[in-house]
């Protein structure tokens, strides 16, 4: 057979590299940080997991197990979730410029977090409130979309609905900010909006794992069908896809992923927009490989950026700002170098 396309497309090497990349980066990230922990200590800590009795200092133990490992895991998981969610939305909306918050999830989550901060509900309250309002915003968008659906293209209407709901929620946030106590609440809201993994603990990760699994598993299972949505509803339907149902599943799953991420990390922009493009440049647009590659690349990307954010200066560089600063020029580079890969 002459055509390589019919041979197994996914070389084993590529798969191994993509699986190993985040793992290797995680090991490297474990050795980097403001608090000096020697390689010997890390080796002791890791072997200590299997052989009892290690004479590791208590602080080093805390830094490795309670500070760095949760944070590294969170960066990988959130990077994966945002990238998968962005890739799924880009296909569903047939638009490569769509990001995971197209339906207003970030604005909703921001509003939820703001309310929680104003009412001093604590960090758990902020996470839950952000999550709930993130879902609520998307539900509103979907509701509006269905309300006016009969007058045209549903994806366009959903995008418009998302802009509408997003605007309403961000205006509400601005309104609250304008009357918020400038000394106590305002800085907290501002910092939340900038995104950070600085206060991640294992319990946060345990908390978001269930909704994230609920979001990611169906998307991975349905990833072949996501391809068909990119050809538009009518063509997809003519090829045997129930587009309404598939789109609803994608929206629910992608929203769960984004809302869970945002709820523990605040707003982290650009990852969900840029990473799918990068993944597409590596593996092509077929969701069969695009989703796994987006996960690997997204997880690795956010891990690298967060490691920079926590080590470069004594202060934490707000993660959302760093991802935007790195993401935007990177995006321009991708666009100018792979222009032909999408129109």
């Amino acid at each position, binding site marked *: 057979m002459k055509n390589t396309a019919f041979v197994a497309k996914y070389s084993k090497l590529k798969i191994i590299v993509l699986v190993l990349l985040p793992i290797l980066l995680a090991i490297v990230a474990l050795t980097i940080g403001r608090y000096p922990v020697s390689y010997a200590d890390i080796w002791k800590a890791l072997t200590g997991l299997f052989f009892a009795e290690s004479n590791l200092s208590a602080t080093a133990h805390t830094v490795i197990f309670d500070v760095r490992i949760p944070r590294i895991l969170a960066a990988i998981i959130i990077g994966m979730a945002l990238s998968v969610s962005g890739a799924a939305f880009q296909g569903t909306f047939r638009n490569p410029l769509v990001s995971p918050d197209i339906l207003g999830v970030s604005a909703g989550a921001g509003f939820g977090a703001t309310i929680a901060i104003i009412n001093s509900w604590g960090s758990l309250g902020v996470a839950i409130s952000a999550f709930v309002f993130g879902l609520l915003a998307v539900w509103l968008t979907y509701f509006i979309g269905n309300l006016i659906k009969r007058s045209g293209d549903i994806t366009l209407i959903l995008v418009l609905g998302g802009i509408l709901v997003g605007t309403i929620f961000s205006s509400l946030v601005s309104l609250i900010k304008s009357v918020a106590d400038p000394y106590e609440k305002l800085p907290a809201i501002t910092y939340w909006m900038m995104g950070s993994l600085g206060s991640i603990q294992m319990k946060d990760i345990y908390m978001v794992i269930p909704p994230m699994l609920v979001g990611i598993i169906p998307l991975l299972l349905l990833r072949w069908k996501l391809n068909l949505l990119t050809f538009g509803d009518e063509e997809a339907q003519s090829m045997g896809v129930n587009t309404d149902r598939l789109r609803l599943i994608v929206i629910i799953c992608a929203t769960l992923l984004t809302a869970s991420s945002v709820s523990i990390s605040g707003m982290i922009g650009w990852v969900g927009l840029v990473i799918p493009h990068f993944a597409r440049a590596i593996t092509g647009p077929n969701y069969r490989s695009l989703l796994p590659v987006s996960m690997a690349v997204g997880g690795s990307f956010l891990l690298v950026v967060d490691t920079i954010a926590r080590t470069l200066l004594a202060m934490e560089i707000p993660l959302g700002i760093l991802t935007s600063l790195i993401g935007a020029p990177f995006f321009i580079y991708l666009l100018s170098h792979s222009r*032909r890969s*999408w129109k």
Partner: protein
Amino acid sequence: MSLEIRNLSFAYKKDQPIIEGISMKVERGEIVSVLGPNGAGKTTLFKTILGLYKAYQGQVIVNGKDVSNSSRRELAKQMGYVPQNHAPSFPYSVVDVVLMGRTAHINNYASPSELDYRVAKEAMENLNILYLADKRYTEISGGERQLVLIARALAQEPKILVMDEPTSNLDYGNQIRLLNHIKRLAGQGLSIIMSTHHPDHALFCGGKAIMLKDGQILCSGSVDEVITEDNLKNIYGIDVEIANAQIKNGKLHKICIPVVA
């Protein structure tokens, strides 16, 4: 295998039907050309037949069974759709695009199997486009893209092929090559409904023809009965003459010639 359409009507607003009372019958291996001026309702008719638009009255009957309540998957196994040339959003490889036609045969949570690859390959061989397999769908020519869309519909293994202006945007050579493909596919047993703006194309393909005007059937029957000077004048408002041209091998070919005023 047969497709029968009875009294099919579709409207966005109830009192303003886009198509109304369309009935027709297509047998196995038959080609039906649908002619009509812009806005006559050809695309709407096709989409209603395919179940993409919900008819407010009438039935689509495949093999004696009303399919209005069939699932997308069942419908897709019966009818394949070749849309008018579209703007693709993502640079899929051609083989991926053709494979998408297999979706109705693939389990909900699965990806294409070896068998699906084989069927896709056969569909491409059928149209002589195997050489395109690894190319990017966004970077091939309009004619090639049209063939890929047909291959995709073939990979779907339908009994009926619905083609919306398959020759539009193609150069003269590609138009004729495409019509030859269509005739050959009909010869392989596929029923084909296609729309065209060229009476000559309908004449070339033979079989049946339908003329649509303002959403209703003006006339239907064999191409020779339908493609007449009077009917063409009626739907397009121009004077034409149908001439019989004798070609070198002695056969007579009907052709349609516009009359210079």
